[in-house]
């Protein structure tokens, strides 16, 4: 959560330049509302009444493990799947019965989806041509959309001549050139390697902020979601578990499931008593769902500290990873619990070294012990 400069800009519209028609024509975005979306595949219910309200121009991520229903929810918004019950509305108008090709959306898929028989520029122009824009203007506007993703010079290539990252950039330009009401991103980065993934995700966010297009982004990568979203909906087993800003989810998770899924945490045994929990001899306030009796306390690496003799509990260093400005160290306490902690890189811990650790006095999330 150190490099989220884009996230701090969230919600503040950036100045739009007039050098690009796509940017000059940028609107204020469209409100998207999901009401009680239920989706069954045969006897299996994959969405159990999902409600989601997305403000115009907002960037919302659907985050969750595979099979949680996030992609199905996105496909219901796109119209590629029809909900068993519930409604989808764009700008207050119910579009539940409107066909995908009439919904005026832009979508980028996980799999490479450029048309192999068309050049890059023809791929981008495809949506405009379907909207009966004449060839010359379609070509000009497509060129501008390609410039926006920094690939204007590759307009005459074929998709197979591009790298994976470039293909997804073209797919983004193709989805945006029609100035869709909603931009839907279905794990567009998961097929790319780590470096390109970070680059492209920041670029998607930068372009989205400039265009002000309402965007729904599906991902299983919490770091991705935290970095770019205005709000994140954490999904689990076909339900939205919690929806909030990245800071909300990280600092005030509503449940242990959210805490475990967003950010790193270690599970430590404690004893709960309503709104307080006793861990390693100190009493900490509980946030979110309370639990009584034997509980597991989820602690963030940055809230575990190295302390001097006579304080906290004893532990042995298992491994220590250098991450630039910080070090992340895994220690095993004497009762066998593995705990991850984060400390300045200057403090070098050796494998097998004995240390003492304690928790910072911040609210923690708990769950009943199994």
């Amino acid at each position, binding site marked *: 959560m150190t490099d989220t400069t884009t996230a701090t800009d969230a919600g503040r519209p950036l100045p739009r330049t007039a050098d690009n028609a796509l940017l000059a024509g940028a609107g204020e975005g469209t409100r998207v509302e999901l009401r009680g979306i239920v989706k069954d595949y045969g006897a299996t219910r994959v969405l159990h009444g999902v409600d989601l309200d997305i403000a115009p121009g907002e960037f919302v991520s659907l985050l969750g493990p595979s099979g949680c229903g996030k992609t199905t929810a996105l496909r219901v918004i796109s119209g590629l799947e029809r909900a068993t019950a519930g409604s989808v509305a764009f700008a207050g108008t119910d579009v539940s019965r409107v066909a995908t090709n009439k919904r005026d959306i832009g979508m980028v898929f996980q799999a490479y989806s450029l048309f192999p028989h068309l050049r890059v520029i023809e791929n981008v122009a495809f949506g405009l041509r379907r909207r009966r824009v004449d060839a010359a203007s379609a070509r000009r506007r497509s060129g501008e959309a390609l410039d926006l993703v920094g690939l204007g010079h590759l307009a005459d290539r074929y998709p197979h001549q591009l790298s994976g990252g470039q293909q997804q950039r073209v*797919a983004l330009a193709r989805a945006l050139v029609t100035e869709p009401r909603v931009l839907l991103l279905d794990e567009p980065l998961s097929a790319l390697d780590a470096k390109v993934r970070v680059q492209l995700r920041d670029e998607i966010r930068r372009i989205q902020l400039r265009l002000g297009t309402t965007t729904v982004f599906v991902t299983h990568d919490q770091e991705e979601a935290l970095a770019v979203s205005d709000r994140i909906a954490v999904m689990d087993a076909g339900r939205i578990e919690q929806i909030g800003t990245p800071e909300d989810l990280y600092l005030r998770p509503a449940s242990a499931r959210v805490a475990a899924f967003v950010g790193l945490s270690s599970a430590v045994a404690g004893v709960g008593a309503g709104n307080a929990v006793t861990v390693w001899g100190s009493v900490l306030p509980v946030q979110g769902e309370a639990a009584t009796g034997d509980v597991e306390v989820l602690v963030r690496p940055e809230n575990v500290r190295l302390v001097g003799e006579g304080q906290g509990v004893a532990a042995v260093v298992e491994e220590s990873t250098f991450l630039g400005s910080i070090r992340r160290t895994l220690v095993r306490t004497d009762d066998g619990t593995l705990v991850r902690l984060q400390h300045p890189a200057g403090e070098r811990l050796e494998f097998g070294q004995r240390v003492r650790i304690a928790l910072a006095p911040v609210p923690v999330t708990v769950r009943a012990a199994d």
Partner: protein
Amino acid sequence: MSGLLAPSRATRWIIGIVVGGVFAVPFVATVLYTISSPDGWTLSRWAALFDPELAAKYRPVWTGLVNSLTLALVTVAIVLFLFAPTMVLVSLRFPRLRRAFEFLALLPITIPAIVLVVGLAPIYLQIGRTFGTGAWTLAFAYGVLVLPFAYRSIQASIDAIDLRTLSEAARTLGAGWPSVLLRVIAPNLRQGLLAASLISVAVVLGEFTIASLLNRQVLQTGLVVINKQDAWASAIFTLLALAFAFLLLLIIGRAGRVGAGRKNP
């Protein structure tokens, strides 16, 4: 891609010459047969085919050829406009039906033509009443006959692309189903559709049993008729049919290469 397994230039030439030689022997022998005479070489038998005075004699073959070409055209249309869209529909919307569909499509290859005719005869009685007895109606039977061959080549093309993602991408971009089929799917199945068309034409031009038993005049039945009167003419027509097939192969191969060129320039 020119990896370790690629044979050397010389090896490729040797393989090419040997294989070409094997195929050339019957071809060359037939050519020699049609132009040899006790007095040396002659082209008179070839010229005779186009002699207006002998036109009546060769009419069955010419009629058969025209009928066969019409049938080829209608059969290709059935493959392209009925069978191919059905296959796309099955892979996109009813993937569970794929195995059953494959079984059904491959079935004709296991049924001898003579058995097919037994079932087709009463059907053609009805078709005759509905559509008349025009030569083209045989294309309904041929459409079934070419299913196994068309199926394999089209399915190979379908498997080579991500049909689902491409059609979903096109739909999110505002394309309706006709547009998806014509502008996105068909161009990407081009090679398979070309191969299916070619093989359909070849099957139709070579078919004898069904046409003969249903008393239709097609190229092959015409050749049999002529063969009884003039063995040389039959050989010449066979050569012409082969040349036509080669020409077709060449055209389609060229078209295929243009397609491949766009993918791998």
